[in-house]
């Protein structure tokens, strides 16, 4: 539960060992975040939530300020102005806070997609799966075939050495190459 007074600790373990522990006051940022949460209407929350939000806020503001510094430098200014910050926020908007598309875009998409008639269905038993390349159970490797020069070279080798174990040559022949197949993973 959330600590209201900074110097009060609710952890049972710390209560017993008060001699050794020194209770640190709650940092201002954490208190600010807690107030924001209450203002939005969240009544009860874990302390971990506050810590995560503080970290997120630091990271986000850091990114925004770095980007606005770049913009200010581009405009050959020493200090960051409000316009730089605004520009930085709007450029980072699409990267971090994606939202579903607006209603007009959605309705347009729907119209386009719904104009295509539904495909016919054949009678079958069980469930129909998509073509093999879209299933997750396809094999995602390919077997590499040896070329003729390589096979000649290995034959020479085997002749000169005299003894080749069956395992070696067969492993040379069936080199398995894990090519990156485009599965739907």
């Amino acid at each position, binding site marked *: 539960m959330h600590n209201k007074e900074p110097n009060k600790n609710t952890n049972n373990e710390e209560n017993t060992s008060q001699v050794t522990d020194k209770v640190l006051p709650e940092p201002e940022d954490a208190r600010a975040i807690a107030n924001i949460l209450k203002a939005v209407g969240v009544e009860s929350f874990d302390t971990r939530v506050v810590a995560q939000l503080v970290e997120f806020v630091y990271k986000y503001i850091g990114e925004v300020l770095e980007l606005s510094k770049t913009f200010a430098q581009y405009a050959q200014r020493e200090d960051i102005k409000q316009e730089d910050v605004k520009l930085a926020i709007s450029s980072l908007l699409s990267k971090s806070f994606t939202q579903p598309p607006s209603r007009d875009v959605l309705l347009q998409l729907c119209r386009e997609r*719904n104009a295509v008639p539904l495909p016919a269905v054949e009678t079958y038993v069980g469930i129909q799966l998509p073509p093999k390349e879209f299933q997750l159970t396809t094999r995602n490797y390919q077997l590499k075939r040896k070329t003729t020069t390589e096979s000649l070279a290995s034959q020479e080798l085997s002749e000169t050495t005299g003894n080749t174990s069956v395992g070696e040559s067969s492993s040379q022949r069936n080199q398995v190459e894990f090519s990156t197949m485009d599965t739907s993973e």
Partner: protein
Amino acid sequence: MPNDLDSFLFRFVLEYLQRKGYKGAADALRNALASEVPEDFHNPPLDMDDQVRNFLEFFLFVREEEKGLVEDYGKIYRWIDGCLEVVRVELGQLTYPLLVYLYLDLIRRERYEESQKLLEEWAPKFFEQSVRDELFSLKGVRRREQLNDNPVSQLYLKHRREIFVSQYAFELLCDFLVEHRLTSVFRCIMEHFHVKMEKDSQVIGSEDSKSSIGFFPYQEFEVLQKNEIHWRPLKESDYIVQEQDSQPESHTTLEGNTVDSNEVHPSIPIPKYPVGSAMLESEDDKLRRVSLGIETLPSSLMYTFSNSYDDMNCVDISVDGSTIVAGFDDSFIRFWDGKECGQYRLVGGKPLIGHCGSIYSVSLSPCGRFFLSSSEDGTIRLWSTKLERDLVVYKGHLFPVWSVEFSPLSHYFVSCGHDRLGRLWTTDRIFPLRLFGGHYSDVETIRWHPNCCYIASGSSDRTCRLWDLRDGNSVRLFGPHSASVCSLVFSNDGKKLVVGLENGQIEFWDIVQGRRISRLEGHNGPIWCLDVSKDDIFFASGSSDCFVHLWNVQSLNNSLQSTLSRDQLLVKSFQTKDSAVYCTRFSRKNLLLVAGANL
């Protein structure tokens, strides 16, 4: 005198620009006319055109009157509260939207302290009703620039709010506003509301107006009411391969639904199954189905999951009661296979790994051998219970998918999610075939109609919609509800829709006529699951308040009241030992199966 007129006009234009917020233009004008603009002025010069003069006088008058908007709102609120019952109910539709619009107007004019004061004083009055979330969202709008980003403010500003009042009530309101000189409020009403006057005051029933005061697209509602719904069950020959199938009859009549006697042709291509197929109801199911009645209540069986309240999000039980699938927060899915229903201890529970986010919904196919899962990572996966692994990934939603359901005839499934769309898929295509867009907020739940021609979706914008699968259009709008929709179920005859809300209420809608049949205070918590027995006699609802209630549908048909008390419909109430109920399902033989997680 021309000088007076000019300076007056300059001042007027300057004030107008400032009021509308065009600071740049106002500054430019002020700089250009530095000496000629008077500081302030009271009366327009006498030699102006009458009409223009009236307008200017009104403008000045309004300018002076705008100081105390908060008190003005208070006056209106108290007056409406003190009116006659009938008038109060009608004008009560006005109070909440008026608060929102006044607040947005103040923000637009950059009068921030006043706007905060307005909200602090008057918002708590509306907290008990369904609009608490909207108010919190509006509280976050503190600056003019944020008006465009906030979804609630956009919703209110883009659409004019419709109000239905009788002429008498509206005249009373106008008289009050003029008498107390609340011109700014009057202007706000004229600008943002669409007042529809009805001759008699009984058009809007008192029940309806209490149901929701938030946003609702009334115009669309009126338009959609005119659509015809083909609700009858499918002809058996359309989805079962008959023995004498020699005549080349068209399997799919896509031209339209010909309503011949009691059945309907499917509007979308559906698969046909041979008679003994696992997808269909078997003869055994029909023979052994327990016929329910007031004397013969269904036997019920509950599976309780321990140590999973924090984790478990969804459960599904197959229609023969043998397989249970549960989805968890740690992106695992577990399923249990009971060989016959009624087993007291389930074996299995191996975690299936595939998704990368919490699982929000699972749905078993009618044959019980496959299931679908939808997750926070925006994908839907098809799993096989025999192979114990996933087979296909369906990507389309890029945002969390809240619900997925297999069609009763398999082959198709629908999903809905945070992106406000519902999608229709077939198992053999990895892209959706239809997109159902129209909701104003996330779509929480989606269900198939028994004849596979329609889909109902319920959303957190407090409405439900009925969609036609062939062209993807919305054919009905059900609303407004008093809270966001959590669960839905169609009655087996296809005529009724039962809606479970987040505040524990259950609403019944007649699909064919598009009107609300009645409302019921069902539970003390959100209703997570609903199901109707196969013969439409009972329906069961389960909620997070650890109860499963069994209700009688037939007495619903007989009663004419719009709000029913619990006792009228409640047949039996099962209290679980501290377990929130996630899934209630009537098996094909009318056995009530329930699954829940122990708190």
